[in-house]
C-alpha cells in the first residue's frame, strides 16, 4: 500500500532547521526510510512564508498570490511517499519522524491506486 506522510511543521520546527542536532536527526531518518526501500519519493520544502505561491482560477480569471494556500500555524514542510504493507507500518514511520518531537504533525494519507 502506498501512503503519503505529510509533515506539517510549526514555526519552532522551521527555525530548528539550522540546528545541527535536528539536521543530523533528519538525515538519519531520511537515510533509514529510504534504505529499507520504504520511501519511494518525497522531498522537504522550503519555508512557506518565503517560497510558496498559489495559483487559482476565479471566475475564469487567473489569480496568483504570494504565500501558502492555507494560512495556518503549521505549514506543509515536506512529504514522503512510502510503500508499506499496512497503516500500522505507516504509523510506525510517522512516529519516528523527528519533527514530531518539536510539535510537528504527520498526516498519514492512503494514496490513490495507480492506474494499471
Amino acid at each position, binding site marked *: 500500500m502506498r501512503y503519503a506522510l505529510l509533515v506539517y511543521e510549526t514555526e519552532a520546527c522551521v527555525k530548528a532547521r539550522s540546528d545541527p*542536532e535536528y539536521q*543530523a*536527526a533528519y*538525515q*538519519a*531518518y*531520511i*537515510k*533509514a*526510510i529510504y*534504505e*529499507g526501500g520504504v520511501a519511494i519519493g518525497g522531498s522537504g520544502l522550503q519555508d512557506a512564508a518565503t517560497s510558496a505561491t498559489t495559483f487559482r482560477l476565479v471566475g475564469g480569471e487567473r489569480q496568483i498570490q504570494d504565500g501558502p494556500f492555507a494560512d495556518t500555524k503549521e505549514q506543509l514542510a515536506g512529504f514522503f511517499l512510502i510503500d508499506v504493507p499496512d*497503516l*500500522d507500518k505507516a*504509523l*510506525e514511520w510517522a*512516529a*519516528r519522524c*523527528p519533527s514530531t*518531537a518539536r510539535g510537528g504533525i504527520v498526516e*498519514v494519507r492512503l494514496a490513490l491506486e495507480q492506474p494499471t
Partner: protein
Amino acid sequence: MHPAELAARASYGRLLSILAVRTHDLAGAEDALAEAFLAAVTRWSIDGVPRNPEAWLLTAARRRLIDADRRRRTREEKHVLLQLNDETVDRDLFGDERLRLLFVCAHPAIDVTARTPLMLQTVLGLDAARIASALRVAPKTMGQRLWRAKTKIRDARLSFDVAPEDLPERSFAVLEAIYAAYGSGWEDVTGRAAASRGLTDEAIWLARLTVRLLPEEPEARGLLALMLYAEARTRARRGDDGAYIPLTEQDPSRWDPHRIAEAEAILMEASRMGRIGPLQLEAAIQSAHLDARRSGSRDDRAVLMLYEALLRVAPTLGVRVAHAVALSNTEGPASGLDRLDAIASSISEDYQPYWSARAHLLERTGRREDARDAYDHAIGLAEEDGVRRWLLARRQALGRV
C-alpha cells in the same frame, strides 16, 4: 469523582465477565453495562449510592441485556439469559469469571494483535481511542480489530474455559498480552503527562490480578516482578532535561526501593515453585543488572547464563540482540557482532535496539565508520526524542572518520 465512576473503575471487568461469560456476547454486554452506568449517574444522584453498587449495576445491566435479547430473538427460542436473573451477586465468584474473560481475550482463535486491546477494554473498560494511541494504531483500525474479535467470540462461541492440559500455554498468551500493554508505556517513558506514560499502570494492575487468579503459575509472578523492576527505574531513566540515561549509567538512588523489594520478594516466590520460564528469566536478568549497579561489581557471566537459558526457551528478536550484547561483555565485541550478523536482515532492518547494539559493538571493535552508519540507522528508527538525542551524542563522540 462521581460514585458511579468509582464503581466503574473498580468493577468494570468483573461485571462484564459475569454478563458475558454465558452469552458470549461481549459487545452486547458492554452496551448493557454502559447503559447501566449511565442510569447510575442520574439515579444515584437522586436516591443516593446503593449499599451494594455492584449488585445494583449488575441487576440494571442484566435487565437491559434481557430486554435487548427479547427484541432480538424469536419467541420459540429458549435462552440462557433468563437464568441470569436469578443469580445473586456472589463475590467469591468474581475472580473466576474475570479469569475466564482474560482467557477468552487471549484465545488462540483471536488475532494476536487484538488480544492486548481486547483485554484492556473488557477487563479494565478503557476506551478504544486511548488504547489505539497507546498501542500506536489508528483508532478506526483498532475499532475494527476489537469488533472482529468480539464477533468471533460470539459467533464461533469460543470457550471461556480452558482444559487443564492447555493451561500453561493459554496462561502464557494472557501474560504475553499484558506484557505488550506494558511495553507500550515503557517505550515512551518521558512521563511528562499521564497519557504519554502509556498503559504501564494498567498492565501492572492486570498482572497483579493474574497473580491472584493464577496463584500456581510462577510465570505470572515472573511478569509482575519484571514490570516492577522496570517501574522502579522510571525516574532514573531520564535526566532532569529529559535526556535518556541507559541502565549502566543510572543513579541507583533514584530507583524506587519499595518496588525493587517487592519485585525481589515476588521473584523469590516464583522461583520456589521450581518451574522456570522466560518471564522469570527476564526478571532475574533485571535483578542481576540492578544488583551490579548497586554493588558496583558486575557478574557478566551470570547474566550471560541467564540470557542463554532465555534464548533456549524464547528466542525472540529482542532476546537475540540482548544475548549478543551479554556475550560481548564476556567474550569481546567480535563474538557479539557474529551473533548479530547471524540475524536475518529482513527482521532486524527496522528494529532500533538491534542497530543501537550493533553501533555500540562496532565502536568497541574500532570500526568507527561502520559504527557511524549503524548509529545513523538507529537514530533514524528512534521514536523517542530522548533516545534519539542520546544516540546522536554517541555518534558525535565517535568524531570524524
